[in-house]
């Protein structure tokens, strides 16, 4: 073999060796606490398969005119609004309108409650009818929802304090809602004159993840199912455009998405921030720790979770009162959002944050400063904190 040949051969083999040995050249797996998606621990291989099917339907199934989209809609896939299972961006914020008291939505005949702001070519999107009050809803994160679904009704009743019996200025009450006919009522469910406790959605109008999913297909994308078969376009009953199986897969996916993992849990400032969070009563609504009840899915059954919510409605004062509501909630009432995953919000909101129901708060501090009503005291206590204590509290919230 000539010298040249040897050189060439060694150059080639060097190339190959370099390539193979340099696993550094490949992207590293992000740590579990830095991303929101992924299943809870302990799913069986069978459950993993359902999870993956649901994951595909949620993130990758895009609707077009050829598979049922619209004719009027808000977006074309679940994942368009809930990117990476995280919070959404103002561009996918949706508008609800037409109900200003507990007597129900007066604009159902005019397209209420949700504005179908987009349409297929040739069709006209809905416009807000004159005289309708409305609210804008930014998509929330979807993580840990199965765990929240598995918190027993009795826990929520125990947390509620409808008449503020303890006199702390914080009441908290469930939204008693009428269930759709397809609901499978949970064992241990508590009812009140035929109405049940809603726990999903900003106004807690939704009973469980099945209702949320069937509604999202119908209201957000114009995809009808045997669960929700009335078209948002013409209010008529139409053929299902998606199999029940897909809906059930997505429900399972949502049920088994892991809870966000807190970062820097042992950091001194984070720990101090958590103490402040409790001291200034944030924790009276944003309940740090809950216990799930028994669930058919072993991996979420009887677990201790740290969601920072009580899933109850609170009067948040006039500044957050849009004059619009759902179910038996009043217009200034909002369901306490879970704060887990808060620190990762910017990874799905395009590097910035859009907090509160309509994304109006551009930082955590701004979100806290918008708290009124039942949270008035808590907000004032926050505003009285020293700068360094405020920073500790924020640092804690960002670790969630």
């Amino acid at each position: 073999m000539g010298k040249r040949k040897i050189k060439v051969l060694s150059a080639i083999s060097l190339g190959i060796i370099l390539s193979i040995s340099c696993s550094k050249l490949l992207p590293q797996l992000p740590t579990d606490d830095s991303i929101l998606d992924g299943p809870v621990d302990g799913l069986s291989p069978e459950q993993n398969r359902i999870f993956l099917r649901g994951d595909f339907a949620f993130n990758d199934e895009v609707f077009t005119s050829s598979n049922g989209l619209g004719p009027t809609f808000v977006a074309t896939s679940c994942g368009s609004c809930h990117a990476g299972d995280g919070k959404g961006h103002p561009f996918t914020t949706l508008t609800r309108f037409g109900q200003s008291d507990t007597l129900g939505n007066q604009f159902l005949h005019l397209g209420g409650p949700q504005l179908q702001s987009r349409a297929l070519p040739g069709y006209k999107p809905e416009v807000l009818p004159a005289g309708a009050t409305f609210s804008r809803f930014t998509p929330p994160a979807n993580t840990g929802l199965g765990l929240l679904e598995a918190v027993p009704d009795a826990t929520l009743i125990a947390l509620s304090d409808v008449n503020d019996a303890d006199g702390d200025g914080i009441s908290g009450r469930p939204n008693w809602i009428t269930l759709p006919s397809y609901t499978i009522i949970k064992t241990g469910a508590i009812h009140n004159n035929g109405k049940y406790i809603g726990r999903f959605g900003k106004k807690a109008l939704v009973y469980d993840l099945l209702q949320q999913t069937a509604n999202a297909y119908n209201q957000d994308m114009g995809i009808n199912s045997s669960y929700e078969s009335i078209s948002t376009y013409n209010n008529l009953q139409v053929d299902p455009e998606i199999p029940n199986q897909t809906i059930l897969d997505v429900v399972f996916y949502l049920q088994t998405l892991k809870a966000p993992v807190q970062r820097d849990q042992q950091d001194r400032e984070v720990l101090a921030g958590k103490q402040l969070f409790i001291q200034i009563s944030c924790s009276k609504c944003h309940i740090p720790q809950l216990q799930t009840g028994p669930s058919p899915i072993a991996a979420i059954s009887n677990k201790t979770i740290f969601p920072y919510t009580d899933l109850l409605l609170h009067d948040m004062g006039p500044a957050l009162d849009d004059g619009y509501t759902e179910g038996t909630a009043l217009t200034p009432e909002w369901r306490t959002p879970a704060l887990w995953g808060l620190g990762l919000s910017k990874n799905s909101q395009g590097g910035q944050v859009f907090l509160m129901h309509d994304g109006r708060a551009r930082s955590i501090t701004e979100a806290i400063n918008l708290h009124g009503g039942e949270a008035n005291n808590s907000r004032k206590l926050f505003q009285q904190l020293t700068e360094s204590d405020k920073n500790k509290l924020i640092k804690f919230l960002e670790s969630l």
Partner: protein
Amino acid sequence: MMKICLSILFIFTSFIVQGQIDPELLRNFSIDTTERKLNMDAVYNRPFIQAGKLPVALGGYVEANYQYLNENGISKGHEFQMRRLTLFVSSTVSKRIKFLTELEFEEGTKEINIEFASVDFEFEPLLNFRGGIVMNPIGAFNQNHDGPKWDFVDRPLAATQMLPATWSNVGFGIFGKKSKHNWTYGYELYLTNGFNESIVSNSMNKTFLPASKSDPDRFGQSVNGMPLFTAKFALRNTKLGEVGISYMSGIYNQFEKDGLVLDKKRAVTAYAIDFNTTIAKTGTFINGEWAWIKIDVPDTYTEQFGRNQTGGFIDIVQPIIRKPLFGFTNSVLNAALRLEYVDWNKGKFVSTGENISDHIYSVVPSLSWRPSTQTVFRLNYRYNWQTDLLGNPPSRMAGFQFGFSTYL
């Protein structure tokens, strides 16, 4: 369709077999395909073999590779891919009437396409007529896409994921070419069937021109009766290299049916510039292309669907060792680098006034070995950063690819 392909395959293999028995029977037009002519000449600038006095000549190429890719830390494992097998048949019907067809099998028989099938009539060098399935001359890659001509395993993203290479349609047009001293110029003008609504209604959830290719009816009918116009002008200097500018425009939606109005007419327009040159002193070959696309997306759609797109690539190929190797007298070893960018959505969010992302960058260093001008082995490392439309932290994909491509 399958039958045609199989019979062609049969004829083809029988020639090969025959060739092995008596190579004297075969006239081999083995030309140096790395020698750069105008991009528009690429369809004929391929090696063909012809058996005896038979009026048809045959050719083709094959591309296969191994890859090990990793997306966000999750490996896709070891993958072996048969990207494509392409067969060409050309015949000289009479002195100035030629026919050429190119059949492509992608990923086995998952996709079988007639990429090109047209008859050329030469009236004079500056005036030729071409009709049949033609390749719309937008950019250079679309016309000049044969695997063995490229030093990278993957086709350029901007050419295949933004522009729809390989993009061919039924239609006809004229082309011509003229040379004087060191200069050659050429033009092409075609009217063909065009795009359809899937460019804004597809499973990619973005404006995506290549989605139109999956319409099985597009070689038989036009969705709206409006032809797609494609034009290209190219200029080449033997010392300086070639530049091409191209334009493609048409109506993509079905705006009426049976005389009833369904929508307004919506246009899709693309502009591209391509260039290639070889630096005489160093032998460095530089080849690049950049394109801009404008799409009239319905106002009733979200910003999810880009109204403007842009992207391109540049390949730099540096021969490092030109010496016979393993008995291959024309062996060349190249180091190459490809830089790519595609922005599927140049625009701003109505709600925030901020820029929409939805883009990808990629860097592909490559080591390619050409034992002869018609065969290439390539070892690539690829790194992509893809950002969703909101501008969230990019999804990273990286990995190694090793493959070959050769003319048959």
